[in-house]
């Protein structure tokens, strides 16, 4: 982060995140960047008019990683977009945005859910935990450490979702065998195919 902060682009400091937005506005939009830019809720000025209410802003308060946060969000904002774009908690990833990949997995009131398929306004008073709330450098959660120990990732994009899911799975009523653990984790897709190592990581934590 400190290194990223020192970098400048046309006089504007940039991070890995706003770099994508910069090349997007510069016209060099790839399929990937275009997807990420357009998938988020557009600003009010760009919205199509529909029905009677076009600016449905709501205030919502929730506990995120042990801290009370109050947000003013468009009612369309998913919990995922609220975490990433409003609270800058970008550890939670947007993969498919349709509940099919598990990259957005977070805990709401202690249970794992797909943050992409739930609206932020539905979470008034809820307790939300993201991967940032699990551990931090130097004080990793045992599951984070186990993923490091077992190389439970390759590109890393699905990893925070895998870890959040894995932590929750160990509290759910699943049989102890490998097949059941794999079934329990089937909502988290890893296109690099690190499943074997992910399973090993989960088993390490389960055994400890």
């Amino acid at each position: 982060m400190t290194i990223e902060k020192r970098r400048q682009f046309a006089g504007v400091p940039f991070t890995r995140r706003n770099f994508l937005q910069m090349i997007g506005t510069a016209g060099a939009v790839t399929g990937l960047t275009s997807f990420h830019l357009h998938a988020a809720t557009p600003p009010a000025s760009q919205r199509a008019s529909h029905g009677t209410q076009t600016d449905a802003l709501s205030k919502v308060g929730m506990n995120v990683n042990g801290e009370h946060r109050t947000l003013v969000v468009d009612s369309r904002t998913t919990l995922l977009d609220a975490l990433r774009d409003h609270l800058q908690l970008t550890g939670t990833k947007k993969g498919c945005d349709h509940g099919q990949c598990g990259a957005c997995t977070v805990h709401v009131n202690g249970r794992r859910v797909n943050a992409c398929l739930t609206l932020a306004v539905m979470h008034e008073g809820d307790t939300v935990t993201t991967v940032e709330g699990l551990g931090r450098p130097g004080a990793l959660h045992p599951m984070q450490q186990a993923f490091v120990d077992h190389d439970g990732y390759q590109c890393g994009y699905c990893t925070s979702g895998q870890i959040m899911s894995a932590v929750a799975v160990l509290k759910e009523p699943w049989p102890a065998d490998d097949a059941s653990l794999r079934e329990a984790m089937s909502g988290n897709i890893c296109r690099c195919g690190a499943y074997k190592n992910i399973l090993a990581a989960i088993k390490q934590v389960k055994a400890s």
Partner: protein
Amino acid sequence: MQPFAYTRAQSIEEAMSAGAKASTAQQGAEVRYVAGGTTLIDLMKLDVEQPATVVDINHLPLGDIERLSDGGFSIGALVRNADLANHEAIRKSYPVLSQALLSGASGQLRNMATTSGNLLQRTRCVYFRDTQSPCNKRKPGSGCPALDGYHRNLAILGVSDQCIATNPSDMNVALSVLDAVVVVRGSAKDRHIPMAEFFLLPGNTPQRETPLEPGDLITHVLLPKPVPNSRSLYLKLRDRASYEFALASTAVVVALDNGHIASVAVAMGGVGTRPWRSAKAEQAMRGAMPGDDVFRKAADIFLADARPRAGNRFKVELARRCLMKAMRDACATT
């Protein structure tokens, strides 16, 4: 996603009166209830659903599973799929329901999805989900590209020339075999709708999927008491081992008496425009000795009216084998 007004219902009456303002409770409803959101928000992102008002019903007191005095169970509309599947009494008394729920979706989705939401889960037909395509269910009269297009995952039973969309729910198949009853509170009158009447055939009105009217709110699902000495199971066949919709599935409840089939109920998923039952197929097995000859005959009767198309012709044989294996396994465990 189109803009909408969000409200949180504080009471069942408040939810009903908000819902009653819509002109339909079917496709295109201006008011939608949101519970788990796993179907609705997905479809809103695709613009398949564009409600002007979304009513959050998560705070209504409909989250309990209760044993009834007659030995059955009442399941609140807001009971999450994971909680229903893992409920001790449900696991013990209705294994088919627990297994069906656990075979569907993923751990995350089952923590969100509710009983009433799963009942109203929408089809996975790719043309229904793509607003650039014609679809008689989404836009009546626009046509059905699935008839001659991609329909590997679509129905062979209960189809019409207008629509061959499959009901994708596993839970609904189990509720069908259990003869569950959907309790609906409505502005006109409250009613108890048996599963056999809850899903409408597409016919010429595929946009109409249930008997629900504006202002109706599903409050509970009632399970009749378990059939004495019965065994039940859910067998799901699909393209992946997990996290995939059924190509064919079978829910069975069977009771043997002295080596004969005393009572049997069979429902299939993945093959019908609604969860499919066949009274004649069940009748053909009743009183008989369990065995492949009987099961094959029942499967033939079950599938006699199948109208497969080029891309899902394999489903007739797949369904036959699915039904036979489910019966074989259920009878073997008795």
